[in-house]
């Protein structure tokens, strides 16, 4: 009894990229089908997560105010770990994120957020079909004209690949190559339940306030880091490791992560909590330098993680907001340009106009710093050692700090020259 279906646009994947695109298209009267392989939007997704809310307001003015969010981030923390020691930096500004200014970021739980967001697009007329995996694209004379899912072929004026990192769709279309082990990280994460009052007292938060915390030195020297976000009644704690370094390391991700959980600085934060969710997911670590030459071809646009729109600077991780912004750019291009063969360049233009490409370019230097292996082990050690000396009072004559530092540099297998070189590289890169 099946009829033949045809849509203005088919979007593969109901993550933030796909939904932002669907929302914008549906709002502008385009018949839009989103196909999601999870049983509900968000059910397959793992994220830190924090969402920078400007992106939601870019999708639609006022959307952030009604979104399914957890806590507004008022505490930005960085923790440097070495063995059992740690150095914590907590940037707190009570006016930051205050009522009159729109809070700039919120912690989120993706299963809740993605479902809310998808429903918003459905309210505007988009169709979201869940529990369906897209297996491939239908091409006619080199132009993408539809998708194949199981035994069904569905056609559309344009297809948008929003299927996330390691996009099989973009690979099948020949736009990106197979995943490169140095350009992706594997992230593991647990959601740990705790009463909201406990979270507020442990992190020094007022009601609705939240903390975002990134950790360095918890990956056994592997390029990567940890993260912790406070939700209303749970904590998201996780760790990311770059795949190629992990492969040669010999230890299991899970074991290293367990050690992080048991670290004397971290354990008191999660003590007594119950782990209700464990997830693992890839995350792009490549930035602009690995960006595909052409995130489009005739009849196909690639958005979000599928195209590599992720920024990781070491002190922040942005993917959800960029996914949305790229989804909006694709939708605007489709609305402005009817011809599926000409829409690609218009999309690129929109990415420039809404500042996504300039942003990717501007922070590309951070990847040079993040490639310095020393920042994942020797430098955290050096920093912890420095603080140890600084705070040690034992009645003896203190050695000069200069000498102490020299000693520590040597002790950690570093040289002053290396330090200067890395410092220079750091300053140049940012």
């Amino acid at each position, binding site marked *: *009894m099946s*009829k033949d279906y045809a849509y203005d646009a088919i979007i593969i994947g109901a993550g933030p990229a796909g939904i932002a695109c669907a929302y914008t298209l549906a709002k502008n009267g385009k018949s839009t089908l989103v196909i999601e392989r999870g049983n509900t939007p968000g059910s397959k997704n793992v994220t830190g997560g924090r969402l920078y809310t400007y992106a939601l307001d870019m999708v639609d003015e006022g959307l952030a105010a009604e979104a399914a969010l957890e806590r507004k981030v008022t505490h930005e923390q960085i923790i440097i770990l070495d063995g059992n020691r740690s150095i914590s930096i907590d940037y707190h500004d009570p006016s930051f994120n205050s009522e009159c200014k729109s809070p700039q970021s919120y912690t989120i739980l993706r299963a809740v957020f993605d479902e809310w967001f998808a429903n918003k697009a459905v309210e505007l007329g988009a169709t979201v079909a869940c529990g*369906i995996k897209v297996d491939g694209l239908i091409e006619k004379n080199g132009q993408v004209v539809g998708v194949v899912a199981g035994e069904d072929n569905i056609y559309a004026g344009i297809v948008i690949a929003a299927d996330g990192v390691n996009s099989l769709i973009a690979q099948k279309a020949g736009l990106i190559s197979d995943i490169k082990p140095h350009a992706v990280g594997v992230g593991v994460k647990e959601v740990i339940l705790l009463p909201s009052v406990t979270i507020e007292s442990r992190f020094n938060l007022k009601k609705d306030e939240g903390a975002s915390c990134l950790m360095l030195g918890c990956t056994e020297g592997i390029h990567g880091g940890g993260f912790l976000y406070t939700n209303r009644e749970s904590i998201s704690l996780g760790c990311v490791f770059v795949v190629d370094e992990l492969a040669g390391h010999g230890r299991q991700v899970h074991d290293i992560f367990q050690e992080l959980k048991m670290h004397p600085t971290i354990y008191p934060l999660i003590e007594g909590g119950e782990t209700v969710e464990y997830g693992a997911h890839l995350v792009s670590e490549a930035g602009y330098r690995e960006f595909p030459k052409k995130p489009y071809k005739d009849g196909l646009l690639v958005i979000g993680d599928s195209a590599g729109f992720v920024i990781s600077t070491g002190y922040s991780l942005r993917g959800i907001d960029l996914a949305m912004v790229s989804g909006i750019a694709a939708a605007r291009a489709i609305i402005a340009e009817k011809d599926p063969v000409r829409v690609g360049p218009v999309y690129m233009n929109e990415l420039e106009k809404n500042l996504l490409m300039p942003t990717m370019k501007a922070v590309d230097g951070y990847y040079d710093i993040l490639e310095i292996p020393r920042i994942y082990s020797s430098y955290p050690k050096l920093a912890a050692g420095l603080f140890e000396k600084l705070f040690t009072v034992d009645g003896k004559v203190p050695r000069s700090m200069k000498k102490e530092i020299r000693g520590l540099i040597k002790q950690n297998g570093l040289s002053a020259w290396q330090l200067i070189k890395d410092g220079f590289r750091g300053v140049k890169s940012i």
Partner: protein
Amino acid sequence: MAKIIACYKWVTDEADIRINSEGSIDFSKAKGKISDYDKNAIEAAMQAAQSIGASAVALTFGTAKAKLSLKDALTRGPAESFWVCSESAEKADGAATAKVLAEAVKKIGDYRLIICAEGASDTYARQVGPRIAARLDLPCITSVRGFEIQGDVITATRKLDNRTEVVKAGLPALISVLPEVNEAPIPGLKAVLDAGKKRSTEFKLQDIGLTDADVAPRTEVRDFKAYIMNRKNIIISADTNADKVKELVANLRKDGVI
């Protein structure tokens, strides 16, 4: 066209149920789903409808929350769905549920076969099917693991303890099926899209001639508690795999399992 009616229940997804340390059960985060066994009942209705050229329809009795089930049910193939919506479904026992479903079946009319699952995946009380049959004065075959319809006769294989039994009945009839009756397929994309275009009819109790008093349950659930099974907590810690196997076998022998 004559109808084959598949009855299903919208239940709490057990995967989302949390058991607190003191044994109480937390349903607050749980979502709903079509009872797993009812997916087989719906598929059985689809296959039966195809074999005799009837139209399969889906029927449920549920609270407002069950609205979410309609699209899912239709995705599995039925041509239309019927939903008796009443908050009394929350506390309804087998008798009350059967009363409602029987009246809804009458209202739908022109049916050849009613298919229920043997039991719901939450309560597994196995009452609703036989009770509907009794109310409608229909032949009833339970524990069905396979069936065939020829003309006006249904021939079903029932699964008993350690044997099977083949039973015949004239149509219209009611059968309650076991999950092994078929493999419920995962719906495809077009099936999902088709579902959005199908008709769903909502009945209130009064539409089927019932009042709240009619569906008051006579059995009442007083308490839910987690059942905690005591584990033996034996850790096999021998050094080599061969020794581990030896120790495992020794333990199983000791318990008389092997």
